[in-house]
């Protein structure tokens, strides 16, 4: 006896296929929604800001007169911030990831650390701002310097870098570690010569995405008390500075229409910077990705 009536199955085919088409449409619409919003956003900012976007805009200090104002201090400040954030967060983040993945025994304690790193990634950035204000600005008396802001931002992106690096390290097949151990290599030799070369694309991709986040973050810097208006450039990591998002925030808060256009132009600069960094990440991923 047949348990399946094939005639019935064929009869039921149509609704199944229709359902499939329906859901395909739903998911397509969901994808398009995001694209549409992004498109509108870009369109508004481009039409508003493109008029102000020229070399003079990049080379001028901020000014009370919109036609003379520029993003030089903010752009340089953002680069200064990166000079602190990149090495600090990458060294601490990759170091932590290597320890947790390669050296630490899997026990309750490392489990606890692991959970807290994930939790830390979800902590609102303003909380990191408060932490930075208490520890770096006040307790260590670094003031609203590049160093204080850089350390705060490093803490903010640290969980992202740790998690990304851990994933990259974990994706290196165990076979390779065993091959290395099997020849009498120490753990460190194995990490340095086998694990790291294979994991570095993933680590750098995660690292650059984390840095992009640090570039765009504003809230913690507001809490640290970064100046909204600064007409000189920092000369060392102990100097006061401001960054692009702060400058944009400042301009959007002004009543004059021209400053809103300036803000749009600033956003374009910021977006270009971010796209540039993300493309480096994509480039690294494609160029060095290894398949096993």
């Amino acid at each position, binding site marked *: 006896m047949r348990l399946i009536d094939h005639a019935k199955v064929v009869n039921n085919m149509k609704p199944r296929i229709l359902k499939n088409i329906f859901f395909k449409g739903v998911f397509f619409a969901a994808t398009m929604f995001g694209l549409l919003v992004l498109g509108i956003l870009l369109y508004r900012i481009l039409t508003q800001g493109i008029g102000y976007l020229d070399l003079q805009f990049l080379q001028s200090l901020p000014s009370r007169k919109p036609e003379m104002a520029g993003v030089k201090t903010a752009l340089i400040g953002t680069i200064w911030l990166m000079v602190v954030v990149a090495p600090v967060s990458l060294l601490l983040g990759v170091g932590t990831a290597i320890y947790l993945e390669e050296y630490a025994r*899997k026990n309750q304690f490392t489990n606890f650390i692991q959970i807290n790193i994930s939790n830390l990634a979800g902590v609102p950035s303003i909380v990191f701002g408060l932490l930075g204000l208490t520890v770096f600005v006040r307790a260590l008396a670094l003031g609203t310097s590049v160093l204080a802001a850089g350390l705060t931002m490093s803490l903010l992106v640290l969980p992202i870098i740790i998690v990304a690096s851990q994933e990259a390290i974990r994706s290196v097949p165990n*076979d390779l570690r*065993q091959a*290395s*151990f*099997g020849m*009498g290599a120490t753990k460190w030799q194995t990490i340095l*010569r*086998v694990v790291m070369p294979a994991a570095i694309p993933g680590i750098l991709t995660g690292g650059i995405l984390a840095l992009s986040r640090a570039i765009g973050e504003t809230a913690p810097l507001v809490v640290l008390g970064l100046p909204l208006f600064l007409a000189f450039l920092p000369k060392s990591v102990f100097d006061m500075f401001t960054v692009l998002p702060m400058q944009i925030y400042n301009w959007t808060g002004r009543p004059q229409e021209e400053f809103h256009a300036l803000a749009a132009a600033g956003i374009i600069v910021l977006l270009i910077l971010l796209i540039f960094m993300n493309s480096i990440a994509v480039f690294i991923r494609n160029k060095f990705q290894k398949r096993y």
Partner: protein
Amino acid sequence: MTATIEKQKVLEKQGDNKSSKQPKDIVYKTSELNLWYGEIQALKNIDLDIYEKEVTAIIGPSGCGKSTYIKTLNRMIELVPGVKTSGEIAYRGRNIFDKSYGVEELRTKVGMVFQKPNPFPKSIYENVAYGPKIHGIRAKKILDEIVEKSLRGAAIWDEVKDRLNQNAYGLSGGQQQRLCIARCLAIEPDVILMDEPTSALDPISTLKVEELVQELKEEFSIIIVTHNMQQAARISDKTAFFLNGEVVEFAETDKIFSTPSDKRTEDYITGRFG
């Protein structure tokens, strides 16, 4: 290290020392070895003597502990969390579980070839030079020599000599496995452990590896885990039959396959179970 490089020259004149009949030395003497994965006992009271310059095959059904045993011989098993052992394995007279015996030191003398070919995602040259490099050999000339000697030893030199700088992942599965054998030879080991080295290979590559094992035993002591009984019969001098974590029978391969003394061995090799 350089002194032992000379030793490998024997490879090139293989076949000369067939006449020697003096008793062979024991490389590995296992006594009352027990091993647990957490609460589960995987090896029970293993007593096994492995002689040098022979091929010792370890056969048995899946889960009988044969892979566990071979991984214990170079202490790779300790990478598995929660492993406990008791008893003793003496390698050349020295207990490998001894606190003063570093695993790194042991593994420079005991090479391992794994079930799945696992070359590094590096060039063919770098794969073979890896072992000597981690042991501190820097001189390019010596490295070149080791690489060639090892690749010749693993019968893959002619296939790869024109593309030493290409990525090892471009090789076929069988070539990759012979490259892994070359990589293992490059540390000039005393013993080579092979954990089902042909289970991921096609029949022709398998044959090549088997022929290679025959050549290598002139120079090295080889312990090979296999679940292919014909393979054990073809290439080994002695065979140990493992079942449920115990050694049921250990004898000359001819004897195991013609007149096994234990009923369970007979059942297994005649294909009645496993």
